[in-house]
């Protein structure tokens, strides 16, 4: 078993985190497939997959539930899948709707909330909603049972750390004192809030303010349930059987993000199973420089072609050297023995199976 496979052994939840644009979704799919091929029943939760991957994973059934994946479409035809793989694409609005239905005191309140125009807007655009619903879905699947492991591909946010703090940010935003302001717009309200109300009414008109007030009135009954759920999901993140896989590429911004994120995991007592650096160019350790390369190749290729090849090699070497320095920096900063490098290739879907074997074989 690879280092990563050992560290993932016995984990029920695997969260792939990292900056946007590093290939997290592909890596998540490969990790999920790898675990399934070891005999586990695995659910993969994706957020924003590219169309071709979405098609291969059968994610056209947008019902916010994991559905079985045909491993042959990921190139695992000859790889005998001892376990099972299911996949789903997270639907933020739908997950919130499910939570409302679950936590509302009665069906009429649930219906009223779902029909409220402010709810429509807030549920998709409030900062942290993607992250919150991703973890909430994770929690729901874990509670339900039936899966040995759940792999989550985190949302493409600029800061991976947003993910860790999303539950508290979301519920903090809907805090009790704030709601009190909307629910009792006179009497005990602070003078400042009265001024704010007046300003809001003048700036945008009355109708909007009414919608907002109605919304908060409806939601006040759910708030305790939302907060309890937030506390549950936070516990899930620090659980012994939850592990994070940090995904980066050799570029500066994702690298710094990865280091930052890994430190934040440590600070919060969350468990890291490994680090994967994607899109790495391999270095030719025996390279002696452009002129020497051209001379070496000239007998076989002729001078002109040898020179062109040497030039190409020099360029690729520069890339590879840059990548190697980045990987070294990451390894040192995180003191990470299970750092896996994934080589840069135009990744064909068939390679997901090969990638799975590479990472977890």
């Amino acid at each position: 078993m690879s280092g990563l496979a050992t560290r993932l052994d016995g984990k029920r939840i695997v969260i792939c985190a990292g900056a946007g644009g590093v290939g997290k979704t592909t890596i998540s799919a490969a990790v999920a497939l790898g675990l399934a091929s070891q005999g586990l029943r695995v659910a993969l939760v994706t957020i924003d997959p590219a169309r071709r991957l979405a098609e291969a994973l059968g994610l056209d059934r947008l019902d916010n539930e994991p559905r079985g994946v045909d491993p042959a479409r990921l190139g695992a035809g000859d790889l005998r899948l001892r376990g099972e793989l299911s996949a789903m694409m997270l639907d933020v609005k739908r997950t919130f709707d499910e939570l409302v239905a679950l936590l509302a005191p009665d069906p009429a309140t649930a219906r009223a909330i779902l029909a409220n125009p402010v709810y429509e807007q807030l549920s998709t655009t409030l900062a942290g909603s993607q992250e919150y619903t991703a973890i909430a879905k994770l929690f729901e699947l874990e509670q339900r049972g039936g899966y040995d492991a759940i792999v989550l591909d985190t949302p493409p946010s600029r800061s991976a750390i947003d993910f860790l703090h999303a539950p508290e940010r979301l519920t903090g935003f809907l805090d009790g004192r704030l709601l009190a302001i909307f629910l009792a717009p006179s009497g005990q309200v602070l003078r400042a809030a009265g001024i704010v109300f007046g300003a809001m009414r003048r700036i945008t008109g009355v109708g909007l303010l009414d919608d907002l007030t109605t919304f908060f009135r409806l939601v006040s009954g759910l708030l305790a349930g939302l907060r309890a759920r937030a506390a549950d999901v936070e516990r899930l993140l620090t659980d012994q059987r939850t592990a994070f896989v940090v995904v980066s590429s050799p570029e500066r911004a994702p690298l710094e993000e990865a280091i930052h994120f890994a430190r934040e995991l440590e600070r919060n007592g969350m468990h890291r199973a490994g680090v994967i650096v994607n899109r790495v160019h391999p270095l030719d350790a025996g390279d002696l420089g452009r002129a020497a390369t051209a001379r070496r190749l000239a007998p076989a290729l002729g001078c002109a072609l040898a020179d062109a090849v040497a030039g190409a090699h020099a360029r690729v070497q520069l890339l590879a050297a840059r990548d190697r320095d980045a990987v070294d920096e990451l390894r040192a900063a995180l003191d990470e023995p299970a750092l896996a490098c994934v080589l840069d290739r135009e990744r064909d879907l068939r390679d997901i199976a090969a990638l799975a074997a590479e990472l977890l074989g």
Partner: protein
Amino acid sequence: MTGRRLIVVTGKGGVGKSTVAAALAVAAVRRGQRTVVVEVAASDDVARALGGSAGDSLRETEPYPGMRHVTIDRRAAMEAYLHDEVPGVVPAALLARSRAFELFVAATPGMSDLLTIGKVWELAQRPRHTRGASPYDLVVLDAPASGNVAGLLAAPRTFRSIARVGPIANQCAAIDRTLTDAGATQVVAVATPEQMPVTETLMLRGALRRQLGIELRAVVVNRVVCTPLHDEDLEALAGAGDDPAVASARWLHGRAQAHREQIARLRRGMPDADVVTLPFLFTRELRRQQIEQLAARLDGLAP
């Protein structure tokens, strides 16, 4: 192209959007235009690309001679906008820092984006609405990578559709006019020559048309790899066997070919657009000098 006041640079994370925004700004400065680059939220990628660093929100720094840089965070943009456009309603600072107002903004369709784009619009006004602020010839907006730029640009009309009256609603008409006037505002999409970025650029084109009637006419394809080999050379390479240099050359050639295919796909999907390619710069780090090189290539796109 006279009268162009705002360039909106958009693209997903990792395509080099901020580098292109910086290069476009440098190209404009070299043509004698007073230029400001605006970034949203905590991002300071452009300032970093030019070796400078972002100042506090709304404080203007100068990372390149003649070029200003401003970082807008939502709250500061909100405060500034309210202060400039709706004076006397209530002290802007008080309003902007009120949690109730913050929630209100989050809940109101288009409002958050409106306050951001409103500040960007103000930067492009001559004279400025902010008292004492210096005017610019060109504003380059480095739009948020994970955001929805069509939604950002449509914010004035989205907001207006739910709040028809009031001082902010009135302002929306003016902002919308500027944003949808091709002579005043240009959207430049940045992509890399790969499957997903090209698909997303084509989808953006559709979204801009549908939501705003804006034509996406300029695309910068970044990090394009060129090969020193010709297809005929590939056979000859077999003569050198397993040499690592040959493997590199094959890889580079294959990559260049894949890039050519994606660029062709982009051009087929956008036959009327100006597609400028920028080379992959095989340097260890992108420095100011390289940005200036890129600026020269982008000169045709800047007004």
